């Protein structure tokens, strides 16, 4: 046992313990600083929410007047008439093609990272690095790449080229969310399948992927929502300043909602901006709804996995 001379006599106490339990010493000042920080942080959060509110409010109020059933289901008539049905369908088509490319490749990549290469293996880390780098490439550069890859050789801008560019943009997101959700599949499921002698591919197809479906669908929805709003790749690969096109052949230029809005900013005709607001309204609503939907599905699939 240590004997320390510091126990000789108690020092003069730093405070009177019997005094009331209000701030003593420098606590008043420190409390004031603490209160100030709280206020600043709360104000910051209010600003953050306010920023979203400002943008959404503008889009909603300015776009509402352009909205009607006709706006959604009719094709444009001249510059200021009709609707944007062709652009909506075009976006749907482009995004679908992009998803058909990116989702399977993303899931396969996620499977590779979880089933075949450990997180610490050389190929695993290289692949993750590759995905990170791909995610950091500006979307306009991706557009340039696909321009050189597809548009130049075919001498033809196309919705398909735009879709390929979008697929490259959303692939890293898809791969990462697939990997995350595949990691969440309980190890016990895998072990049970192994113990039963089930071959790897069968357990992946019938046990692991079904368990991960919720998360994969969520990731796909989010990735698609992200892709629906991307303009730069479409500008380069599917640049179609003729918003009147109603053909939906993906191997030619087809219209899309982002390009529609972008094109209108070039026009100086009165009464045309409101249509862009209307298109922005629809686009924003679609994307925000997709985000909400993804969250709901995610919450439900988390509850299911937590319960199992």
């Amino acid at each position: 046992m240590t004997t320390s001379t510091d126990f000789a006599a108690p020092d003069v106490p730093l405070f009177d313990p019997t005094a009331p339990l209000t701030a003593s010493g420098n606590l008043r000042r420190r409390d004031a600083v603490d209160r100030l920080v709280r206020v600043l942080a709360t104000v910051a959060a209010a600003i953050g929410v306010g920023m979203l509110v400002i943008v959404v409010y503008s889009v909603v109020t300015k776009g509402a007047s352009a909205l009607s059933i006709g706006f959604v289901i009719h094709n444009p008539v001249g510059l200021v008439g009709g609707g944007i049905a062709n652009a909506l369908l075009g976006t749907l088509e482009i995004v679908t093609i992009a998803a058909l490319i990116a989702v399977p490749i993303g899931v396969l990549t996620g499977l590779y990272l979880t089933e075949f290469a450990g997180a610490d293996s050389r190929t695993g880390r290289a692949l993750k690095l590759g995905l990170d780098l791909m995610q950091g490439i500006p979307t306009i550069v991706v557009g340039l790449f696909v321009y050189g890859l597809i548009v130049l050789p075919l001498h033809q801008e196309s919705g398909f080229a735009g879709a390929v560019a979008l697929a490259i943009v959303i692939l890293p997101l898809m791969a990462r969310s697939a990997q995350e959700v595949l990691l969440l599949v309980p190890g016990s499921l895998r072990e049970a399948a192994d113990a039963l002698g089930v071959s790897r591919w069968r357990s992946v197809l019938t046990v692991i992927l079904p368990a991960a479906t919720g998360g994969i669908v969520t990731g796909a929805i989010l990735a698609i929502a992200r892709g629906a709003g991307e303009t730069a790749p479409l500008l380069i690969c599917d640049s179609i300043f003729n918003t009147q096109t109603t053909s939906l052949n993906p191997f030619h230029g087809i219209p899309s909602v982002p390009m529609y809005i972008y094109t209108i900013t070039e026009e100086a005709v009165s009464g045309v901006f409101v249509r862009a607001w209307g298109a922005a309204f629809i686009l924003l609503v679609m994307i925000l709804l997709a985000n909400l939907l993804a969250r709901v599905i995610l919450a439900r699939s988390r509850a299911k996995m937590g319960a199992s």
Partner: protein
Amino acid sequence: MAGLSRAFARGARGAGETGDRVLFWLCAAAGVLVALTLGDIVYQLISNAGPAISRFGLGFIGHQVWEPHFGQMGAATLIYGTVVSSVMALAIAGPLGISIAIYLAMLASPKVRAVVGPLVEMLAAVPSIIYGFWGLIVLVPFVQSIEPGLNSALGWIPLFGPPQTTGISVFSAGLVLTFMILPIVASLSRDLFLTVPRELREGAAALGATQWEVIRGIVLPSTVSGVSAAMVLALGRALGEAIAVSLVIGDVSAIHASLFQPGATLAERIANQFVGASSNLLIASLWYCGLILLAIGLLTSLAARWIAGRFDVERSYARAVAA
């Protein structure tokens, strides 16, 4: 009988092995595809920029004049505009985002956090075209109205020079970029703050420290590398943004000290001049700009990874930007 069942079993195993092999090669092919795509992107950019590289060399980066008609192109003004607008956005979104993260992680009740958090994340879900369009119609006139005031109050700083007739300016571009990168800083930082173990925060509180002292002394220091990486990622996003910036910055090749002047960035110059560009040298120069942007994008990704070290900033990033 026994022989038959053994053959059957072997056959079944064989099918399992084939199936396994198919699965493996499918997955590996996906991985290889990723690598090939990356490589091809680099190759395409370099080869298509070739004519401009051989004509201008590295001087392209320092040359200020951009006159396609005279065959003179230089990216200096573009690089300047890119850097200035992005740094301005980070200067605002950085502190603001960290403050929001502090609020969400440390001060808000769980119910409030569950509402405000997703709202801030939604900022990342708004497409850049909408930010650009909104910026053009709503933000630019607003900036135009406040420019004289800012100039008279802060005019002694060269950044806030004499106001322009319109609000089209580097300043507007910086503001739009702030909207776009704020959710990245806020969401990533919030996730980081929430990983600080509860025992550490409790232990600090038990020593008679105020909430701010716990944040300042424990939470912030232990997350500094992650937060820095988040800021680098946010900066990278701002550096590469084309559409939103193109609608509010004016595409003017000039370097000014004042933020209130129009300018240009690498990404928006490509967006503005690529479609319909006729001169081959112009096209190659735009590819050259793309190449510079590619280098910037790759470098910021690498820098963020290096700064974050072991922490998995990546996963939160995916959530933040996918939202």
